[in-house]
């Protein structure tokens, strides 16, 4: 089966530091891939490269066979690749509903407002944020904001691949469950592909059939969580740097 | 020995060539005028026209300067600001080697330039700048061929007396020009013990809205409103006073001759009729032969009748050329001496002198001051009624 998202020899340097060095990644359509590794391994850099926040120094990124290198983040989003941020980028002064409508309208070029509203209503329902639909997003609790941020990504029409950067960090179990349910649902119903960066091994085990381990900017191992956990070098890398 | 001789001959030849070249250099007369805002560029352009025609006259009918040398004009923009004015004066003296600098329109610029002139020694001549201190400070370098505050104020006090106005509102901009005139008005009215109540209000030259002051003035119920603004504030006041219903029931006097300019009726098509204003030239006046030459040349070139700013610009450049001739030198000290002791021809029929007189009349020659009135909309200024005619120079 042809990969949905591929990177080849992907390299990024910041000054003298090699944040990612020659990363070859291949994600199948419909996969939920975990991306794990100690702090400073380059996971967020990889996500930023894929999402087009900055250009790579070398290598290629392909979505559905087409190169994403050189495209701006908004163009990448319109191709169907969406990402969420570790520190939530919500629009605090806009209502919850508006936060949901924006990604849809932005990518549909402003047309189809009706479809956008329907889709937003569906997700408001699923997440039980309906009662807060018209409240400014900044009035939501921390957990609700994390949920909203994740859900906003689902609003993109033509969503193919969703990259989530630490979506579970510091939020309560109920919200965590809600996010997990959402991911599983959309994965099954619409065959959305996911890449999830996380330190929460229990969740990674539950959601991700395969994980990719990054250490010091390189892919150290790939396989099921049990396979990679058994590898001595991976353990050493983690222990050397300490768990979070 | 022969090589020494060759070097000597070569050096002498070079020196001779240099002297010949120098002798052919034109005598430069500097013109410092406002050509861009916040200065009044219309005034500057008009003065410039006069200066340029003066050069033609000097090099043509007058036969040149100091024998066979030509006169040339060097022009710099003062922008109506003191810093630019100082820089402009310096440039005219050090780069253009002007023998004198004239053209001054804004009083603040002239005053600033005079301080520098005191050091550098090249004389200045005010063409249309009227603040007292320009000549009142008795600087050897400072001269003027324009109406000074006392004469202008004397003219409008005559007007006030003649019309029997009892309550007069003065709105003056806070520049040397505005404040000077406001203070002089107070002074002279006290001296003459006039039975007139004055209300004096000052405003910033850059004000965008004179409504608050005009409302206060309206509440004072004046018989006359004296508009001592220059450029935009003057126009603003004409319009806003009309909007608030002060004019035309209460007459307004504009303190300088802007209403004679062609744009005036474009800016004030509905509010210009009935306006009184100061002017310094009326076509009914007799001109000198140079003045006649000028009027004809101006009409041919610009298809308009000449106005005071151009006439005086012409006159000033002409006077300087004559002074250089009388001094038989371009040395600034000699030119100053010639200006003080000589008699000169300008555009009017009366001769011009710059005596070391008392007070503000020092080094000053004043043309007559007129107060005109537009009696109909879109009226040609030459048809405007002459209400007051007040003699010029020292009383």
């Amino acid at each position, binding site marked *: 089966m042809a990969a949905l998202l591929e990177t080849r020899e992907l390299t990024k340097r910041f000054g003298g530091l090699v944040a990612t060095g020659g990363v070859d990644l291949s994600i199948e359509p419909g996969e939920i891939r975990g991306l794990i590794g100690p702090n400073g391994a380059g996971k967020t850099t990889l996500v930023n490269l894929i999402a087009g926040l900055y250009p790579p120094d070398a290598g290629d990124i392909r979505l559905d066979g087409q190169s994403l290198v050189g495209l701006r983040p908004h163009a990448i989003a319109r191709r169907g690749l969406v990402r969420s941020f570790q520190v939530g980028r919500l629009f605090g002064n806009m209502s919850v509903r508006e936060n949901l409508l924006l990604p849809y309208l932005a990518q549909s070029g402003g047309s189809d407002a009706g479809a956008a509203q329907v889709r937003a209503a569906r997700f408001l329902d699923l997440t039980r944020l309906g009662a807060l639909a018209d409240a400014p997003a900044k009035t939501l609790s921390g957990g609700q904001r994390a949920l909203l941020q994740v859900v906003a990504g689902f609003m993109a029409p033509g969503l193919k691949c969703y990259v989530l950067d630490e979506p579970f960090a510091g939020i309560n179990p109920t919200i965590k469950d809600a996010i997990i349910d959402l991911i599983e649902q959309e994965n099954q119903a619409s065959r959305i592909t996911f890449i999830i960066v996380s330190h929460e091994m229990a969740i990674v085990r539950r959601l991700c059939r395969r994980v990719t381990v990054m250490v010091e900017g390189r892919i150290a191992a790939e396989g099921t969580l049990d396979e990679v956990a058994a590898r001595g070098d991976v353990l050493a890398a983690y222990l050397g740097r300490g768990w979070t | 020995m022969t090589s020494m001789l060759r070097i000597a001959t070569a050096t002498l030849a070079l020196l001779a060539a240099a002297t010949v070249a120098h002798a052919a250099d034109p005598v430069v007369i500097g013109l410092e005028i406002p050509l861009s805002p916040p200065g009044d560029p219309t005034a500057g352009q008009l003065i410039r026209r006069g200066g340029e025609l003066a050069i033609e006259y000097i090099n043509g009918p007058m036969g040149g300067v100091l024998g066979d040398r030509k006169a040339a004009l060097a022009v710099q923009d003062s922008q109506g600001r003191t810093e630019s004015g100082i820089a402009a004066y310096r440039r005219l003296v050090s780069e253009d080697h002007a023998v004198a600098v004239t053209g001054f329109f804004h009083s603040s610029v002239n005053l600033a330039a005079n301080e520098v002139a005191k050091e550098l020694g090249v004389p200045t001549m005010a063409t249309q700048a009227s603040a007292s201190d320009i000549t009142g400070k008795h600087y050897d370098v400072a001269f003027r061929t324009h109406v000074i505050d006392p004469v202008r104020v004397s003219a409008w006090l005559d007007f006030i007396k003649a019309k029997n106005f009892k309550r007069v509102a003065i709105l003056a901009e806070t520049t040397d020009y505005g404040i000077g005139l406001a203070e002089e008005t107070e002074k002279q009215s006290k001296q003459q013990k006039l039975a007139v109540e004055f209300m004096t209000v000052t405003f910033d030259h850059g*004000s965008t809205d004179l*409504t608050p002051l005009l409302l206060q003035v309206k*509440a004072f119920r004046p018989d006359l409103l004296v508009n001592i603004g220059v450029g935009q504030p003057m126009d603003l006041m004409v319009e806003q006073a009309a909007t608030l219903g002060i004019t035309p029931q209460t007459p307004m006097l504009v303190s300088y001759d802007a209403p004679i300019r062609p744009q005036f009726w474009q*800016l004030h098509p509905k509010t210009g009729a009935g306006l009184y204003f100061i002017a310094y030239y009326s076509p009914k006046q007799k001109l000198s032969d140079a003045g006649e030459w000028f009027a004809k040349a101006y009409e041919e070139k610009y298809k308009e009748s000449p106005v005071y700013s151009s006439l005086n610009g012409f006159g000033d450049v002409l006077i300087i050329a004559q002074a250089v001739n009388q001094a038989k030198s371009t040395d600034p000290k000699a030119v100053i001496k010639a200006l003080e002791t000589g008699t000169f021809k300008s555009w009017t029929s009366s001769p011009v002198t710059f005596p070391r007189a008392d007070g503000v009349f020092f080094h000053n020659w004043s043309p007559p001051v007129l107060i005109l009135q537009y009696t109909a909309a879109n009226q040609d200024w030459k048809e405007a009624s002459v209400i007051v005619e007040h003699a010029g120079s020292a009383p």
Partner: protein
Amino acid sequence: MFTTELFVQTLIAGVVIGVLYALMALGITFIYSIVKMINWSMGEFYMIGGYLQYLLIVEWLGTDLWWVAAPLSAFGVFLLGYLLEPLLIKPMFTTAVERKDDYAIVVTIALLLMLRNLAAALGGPYQRTPGSNLPTVMLGPLPESGARLAAFLCALAAIALFYLLLKKTWLGLALRAAAQSRIGAQTAGVDVFRLDQVAFGIGVGLAGLAGALLAPVFMVFPTSGVVTTVKGFEIIVIGGLGSIPGALVAGVLLGVVESLGASFISAPYQNVYGFLLVVLVLLVRPTGLFGERTRQA
């Protein structure tokens, strides 16, 4: 002299001029909220709006169709801004410009000088006016020039339309999002570079509209933008950078303070009262009355 009638008249005059100032300030604050830079040449776009209005009326439409000419002039200025932005402002974001704020200052001041001198060169330094046939109107006890009142009403309408644009349209949604988080908006699929162009165009278009409406009131000449720029910035400081209600409230406040101060305290210091208000706000509430510290995306 103080009477109730005088007070009311002065107050009304202050409100009228204040709303007009606010239209200027709106453009500045709006551009800042999206493009994150201060456009120092705002006054020059105001000036161009005035010239366009003058030309449209004198050459083609005539004085009475001023209300047709004004939106056209505003659109013309919008177009100018829209076309200039990719040349002058966009490099700030796309190339590796160090010290973006310094770059923005230099570029917009250069633009200021260029536009001002261009206007003087093309049109001459003279003052012009498209004229107005609107009659004087009584606003309560205050006689107000028809043109000034018309400008006031149109400014209010423009501000209302602008508000609707921001709140009700999809473009407005995108603009608000970009103002709050540039990266967030990009990631959501908004082409922020195209948006910058539009935002810059709208911002200068507002200034151009102010210039067109005020052409018969304050006249048109190459430096007519200078005073309006100063007022615009005073309002931004008082109201808070990036706040639209702030621009309106601060504009009216400034107009009223200047008006009352000039009338009842001392006229020549009219502009000083505004600056005193600015200093007061800076001391008491440095981010402005409505300002809040937005996080840099």
